[in-house]
């Protein structure tokens, strides 16, 4: 168990800056997820923490010790690779014990730890097989086992589930979460899958193009995305984003006009001027089906996906180019091409300025004050 501090950590490959100065604190026993689209620098950042990649600038501090010049072999961390990277010429048992033998841990202690890890991961039956004779899921467990036996200061995972099929991925996700609970160890987990991030993390770090867009607990990011990128990245289906402008300003509230002639009032604490360009965000699950009188939106339905427990409606507002997705609980009979009456709750709406930054909601400030 350990804590980790990144201070203005940068990475360049030649002229190309890949990580632009990341500041981050990870506490003892925290489960932190780096999430972002492919190529945003998640692996690079993780590998710099591991010591596999040297850092161009900044500081990495683990348990109060500067790690900048400490070799990966001496950092006492363990990593689970996307490819698993099991040693093909060693049995599963040897794969697990290799690091301990290198560290000259006594024989009986090695045996105890290997047996313990094998029991936790249910790989006892394959200990004497070679990795080639294992399924993808079993290899995955061995890779995790190899990290566990080391009792590392920090566990690092680089997209460990991406080579598994969907069902196994969900099962393993749950197991890694349980493992974290059981070991109480600090874990850093990289994924491009926001569902993995939302379900596993204590703290999510959203990355884009080598920049940290937002750090926070999963529900914080969901409820208060700091900008358009995070708003669009976290949550599935994606948040609907509709371009508009400020039509009227009142204390603690603005009227936003979208899709040409639809006006909605949003409680925001910020100063906005009439005519300012803004983007209105609302999540698919925050629309309500309304009677024609209470509705403030009429959606032209393109097509409908009935999933049983919920219904997804794809459509557009008349006069707006951006598509809209609506997620309704339960089952609904809605015909393609018809018009669907919807209402939006003011406190579920997000407003972003022309730079894509979220404007704080009035209610949030009131609660904070």
């Amino acid at each position, binding site marked *: 168990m350990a804590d980790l501090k990144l201070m203005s950590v940068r990475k360049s490959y030649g002229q190309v800056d890949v990580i632009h100065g990341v500041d981050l604190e990870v506490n003892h026993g925290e489960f932190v997820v780096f999430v972002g689209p492919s190529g945003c620098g998640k692996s690079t950042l993780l590998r710099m923490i591991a010591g596999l990649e040297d850092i161009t600038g900044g500081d990495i501090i683990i348990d109060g010790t500067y790690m900048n010049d400490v*070799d990966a*072999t*001496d950092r006492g961390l363990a*990593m689970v690779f996307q490819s698993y990277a*099991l*040693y*093909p*010429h060693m049995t599963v048992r040897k794969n697990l014990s290799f*690091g301990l033998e*290198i560290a000259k841990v006594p024989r009986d202690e090695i045996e105890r730890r290997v047996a313990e890890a094998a029991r936790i991961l249910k790989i006892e039956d394959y200990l004497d097989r070679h990795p080639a004779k294992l399924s993808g899921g079993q290899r995955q467990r061995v890779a995790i086992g190899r990290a566990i036996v080391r009792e590392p200061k920090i566990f690092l995972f680089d997209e460990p589930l991406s080579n598994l099929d969907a069902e196994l991925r969900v099962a393993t996700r749950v197991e890694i979460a349980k493992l974290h609970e059981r070991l109480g160890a600090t874990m850093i987990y990289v994924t491009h899958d926001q569902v993995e991030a939302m379900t596993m993390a204590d703290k999510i770090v959203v990355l884009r193009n080598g920049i940290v867009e937002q750090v926070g607990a999963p529900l914080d990011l969901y409820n208060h995305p700091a900008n358009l990128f995070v708003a669009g990245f976290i949550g599935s289906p994606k948040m609907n984003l509709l371009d508009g402008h400020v039509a009227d300003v009142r204390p603690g509230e603005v009227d936003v006009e979208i899709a040409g002639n639809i006006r909605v009032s949003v409680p925001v604490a910020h100063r906005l001027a009439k005519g300012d360009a803004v983007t209105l965000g609302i999540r698919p699950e925050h629309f309500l089906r309304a009677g024609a009188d209470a509705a403030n939106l009429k959606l032209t339905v393109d097509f409908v996906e009935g999933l049983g427990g919920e219904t997804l409606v794809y459509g557009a507002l008349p006069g707006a180019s951006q598509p809209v997705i609506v997620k309704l609980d339960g089952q609904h009979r809605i015909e393609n091409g018809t018009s669907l009456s919807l209402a939006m709750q003011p406190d579920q709406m997000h407003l972003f300025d022309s730079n894509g930054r979220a404007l704080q909601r009035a209610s949030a400030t009131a609660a904070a004050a």
Partner: protein
Amino acid sequence: MATITSTSSRWDAFARQWRRGRSGYMFLIPWLIGFFALTLGPALASLYLAFTKYDILTPPVFTGLDNFRYMFLQDYRFRQALQVTFTYVLWSVPLKLGLALLIAIALDKGTRGVDLYRAIFYLPSLIGGSVAIAVLWRQLFDRDGLTDQLLQLLGWPPGTSILNNPDHALKTLIVLSVWQFGAPMVIFLAGLRQIPQDLHEAARMDGAKTMQRFFRITLPMLAPVIFFNLIMQTIDAFKAFTQAFVVSAGTGGPIDSTLFYTLYLYQEGFAFFRMGYASALAWFLLIIIAAFTALTFLSAKYWVHYDDTR
């Protein structure tokens, strides 16, 4: 009636097949003639000759096991030839493979200009086996050769030729062979490139330092390639001939110190015209090589692991 149809249709099928492959078989003919007339034929003939006394001028006379009895019980030059050849194989093969591996690792690490260095390091293997280079080496190391003159400058007595010294002649030939490490090096280099980078990274995360990674990851992962190189180089070394022939002017001297097995065989057959005995020597060499190869294959079970995960 039915039988006739089926035979003729089978014949038709064969004819069709032949017409389709005709030009291909035509291209094969020179090779087939070469193999049967120039390789398999003489080989089988020599198997018979091994049990005869044959001086080329008169027809061979069957003598049973006489040749082998002489070989194992009386022929001291045969023993000398075996000793020279085994010494050569046991030194030159490990040294050559070791050097090839070292250079391959150095080239694998470097990034800039690797292709150029690879070509440069391969050069000795292209030209090193040639007669011209053996002649050059003779010029370098023979009496009054370049090294001789250099040694004289350093105060050694004149005539300290390395190649004329029975203590050093074989060593020189071993060095000359080790110098031709290019072929195994290129194969090692390809083998090193095959080892996934993340295995090294996983081993680093496991705390393994450079040397530990070399012995516990790189070497075992390279085992199939080492195995291949070991077999090829051992066979090659047993068959070594040209350098010894040129350097000693075909004598195996000084005092038989470079009397390679193949050189002795050549002398018996083509200098002394004891073709029957030479054939017996040739077949015994084949048995030695086969035995070595078989031993290597048997040992492979214990040290070669083929990666079949991918």
